[in-house]
């Protein structure tokens, strides 16, 4: 396969105009890097081949914890000169690109060991291209490509890149057949090419495939210290792409400790079979506080499906999409204020779904009445509740209603804006939130309610355990102070 970016570099080297030469070289190198790692942002400096300042700086906006990596472009044909550079400037946050063929072989060993000692990556544009191309035939090798850009080290010349890729590809294939020898080859290669944290991440993905294919943890060819407690968003995406894995036990293992934020960090995810299995497995442990229900015209088939849209987990059905999140401002959109249900409608919806209403607010446009129970009893059975609408005249509608979950948390539903939100600091289970919000905000019929009950696994609620370790957390989750945002207008 012709090396597009490598060829572009070679052509650009011999341009007569210096400024043009540099721009074209940087274009080609940037293109190859972005191909290998779509999450990388490549920033140019005003230098080229400078003794101390890099030519490019690599950043990862989706992973602010990952430190920038300096890229040095080197047109020298002498491995010894490049080795001197690596010894002077190299460290774990550097990448050196050899732009032209080497002449002479004496210093190559020195170059390799200098690169390894300093955890610096010394490579060629053609190597990066070959690693990126491997994604076409092996998802596992594709993961390797971006990992090398992020945290690769050592010497990876173009004539070795395919070999590196294929070892990793064979390992992923071997893991799916529970073949320890083939898997071990990949583990070794990952250890040899990636800095420890990144190596651990990929070895963990390899292990997830191994376990999902029926392998036992004891037989997996890597020690515990080579496994990472953190599964990156990339790895989660990779696992979701494994639609062929139907084993619910596999998804139980991946879902163990999966939090809502990890799903949100995906940004968007199609309602694939894998995502359904993953969310279903994780559901009893997922917590949220807010729900926004959008009556939809979208044709989506008759089933209820999970998906991730605009950074929020959502349940979508034939007539609605319901999003959940930790905060209402993340998901709610102000449309035109609608009219709520009549009192009769509300009572019918609540009683059909077994939801206790503790308080409500009714309005006729110019006057409103609030009616609530002292304590926690259900007011929908009160004979006197009808006085609320009598007082307001015939055209009264319910603006808000409050309920309480089994776990004791209060939850308020707003019919004007079609959202529901918890009123305490504790976060209720996603299943409970959706059950209450969807049933109260929409007039579901009996089959729809049954389908909702099945999808939400309401009989499988797990009480939140205080010492539950979040094993799989999005690498992007950063504890940054958050401020209240004003609700955005409807798109």
């Amino acid at each position, binding site marked *: 396969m012709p090396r597009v970016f490598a060829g572009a570099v070679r052509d650009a080297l*011999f341009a007569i105009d*210096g400024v043009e030469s540099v721009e074209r070289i940087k274009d080609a190198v940037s293109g190859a890097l972005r191909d290998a790692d779509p999450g990388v942002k490549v920033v*140019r400096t005003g230098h*080229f*081949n400078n003794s101390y300042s890099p030519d490019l700086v690599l950043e990862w906006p989706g992973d602010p914890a990952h430190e920038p990596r300096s890229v040095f472009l080197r*047109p020298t044909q002498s491995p010894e000169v490049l080795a001197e550079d690596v010894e002077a400037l190299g460290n774990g946050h550097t990448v050196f690109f050899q732009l*032209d063929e080497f002449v002479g072989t004496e210093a190559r060993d020195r170059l390799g060991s200098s690169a390894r000692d300093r955890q610096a990556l010394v490579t060629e544009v053609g190597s990066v291209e070959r690693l990126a191309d491997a994604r076409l035939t092996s998802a596992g090798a594709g993961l390797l490509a971006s990992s090398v850009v992020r945290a690769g080290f050592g010497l990876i010349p173009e004539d070795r890149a395919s070999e590196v890729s294929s070892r990793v590809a064979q390992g992923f294939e071997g893991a799916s057949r529970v073949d320890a020898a083939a898997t071990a080859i990949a583990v070794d290669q990952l250890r040899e090419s990636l800095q420890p944290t990144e190596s651990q991440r990929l070895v963990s993905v390899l292990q997830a495939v191994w376990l999902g294919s029926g392998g036992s943890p004891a037989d997996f060819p890597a020690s515990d210290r080579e496994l990472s407690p953190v599964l990156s968003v990339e790895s989660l995406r990779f696992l979701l792409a494994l639609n062929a894995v139907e084993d619910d036990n596999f998804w139980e293992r991946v879902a163990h400790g999966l939090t809502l934020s990890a799903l949100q960090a995906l940004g968007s995810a199609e309602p694939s079979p894998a995502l359904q299995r993953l969310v279903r497995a994780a559901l009893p442990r997922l917590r949220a506080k807010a729900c926004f229900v959008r009556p939809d015209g979208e044709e989506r088939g008759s089933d209820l499906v999970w998906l991730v849209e605009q950074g929020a987990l959502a349940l979508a059905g034939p007539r609605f999409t319901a999003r959940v999140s930790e905060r209402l401002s993340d998901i709610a959109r102000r449309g035109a204020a609608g009219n709520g249900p009549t009192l009769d409608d509300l009572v019918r919806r609540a009683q059909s779904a077994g939801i206790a209403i503790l308080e409500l607010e009714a309005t006729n446009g110019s006057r409103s009445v609030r009616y609530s129970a002292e304590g926690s009893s259900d007011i929908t059975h009160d004979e006197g509740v009808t006085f609320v609408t009598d007082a307001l005249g015939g055209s009264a509608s319910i603006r808000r209603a409050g309920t309480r979950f089994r776990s004791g948390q209060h939850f308020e539903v707003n019919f004007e804006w079609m959202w529901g939100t918890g009123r305490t600091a504790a976060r209720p289970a996603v299943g409970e939130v959706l059950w209450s919000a969807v049933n109260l905000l929409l007039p579901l019929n009996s089959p729809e309610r049954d389908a909702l009950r099945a999808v939400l696994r309401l009989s499988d609620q797990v009480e939140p355990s205080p010492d539950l370790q979040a094993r799989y957390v999005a690498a992007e989750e950063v504890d940054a102070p958050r401020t209240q945002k004003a609700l955005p207008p409807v798109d």
Partner: protein
Amino acid sequence: MVVRMAGEELHELGAQGARRAKRWLDRTTRADARWVTPDRVAVPKLTFEWADGSTFSFDLGGLLLGEALDGQEFLAEVKYYTSSGAQGKMYEEYLAKCYRAYSSRPDRCDNFMWITWAPFSVTSWATLCDAETVRTAVLQHRQKSLGVDDVASAEAVISGDLVAATAERLWLIVLSRRQEEQLQMSARHLALIRQHEIEQAS
């Protein structure tokens, strides 16, 4: 006494000199010495044509940085010598090269530098960058720089403006080993500048 060295050793010494000069220039923070002999990428940027079609090259080239110099290009000849050697004659030929380069591609010839480790032509040192010295050199090398054989035709063809412009662009830089190896910005301070530039770029 002139020490004769084998061709390959001369090349290697030449390459070493170019690398040293590059390092020194980069570390002043006022230059990006991008094109370094013998890198293949450097050749097209450093090579020019004489009037008779043959070519000549400079040893080093790149951009100058900061303030009034920012964005200007430079071309340099590097003489990593321990003694004056034949620099006098070579310098004269270099001046003819500069005139020729400036005449043919003025856009690439903002600055010409002679970088040496050994002073030479001491008695005429003060005038080495004068227009008159350039003019003499061009006339001396008239076949290549002007494409004419006799002095009279050369004097008719040579441009006073181009001579003056060339002279204005001349730099004469003398380095010593101790100076360029040790009396330059420390690695620690350069690391600070590098970090600053990385942050500025982002």
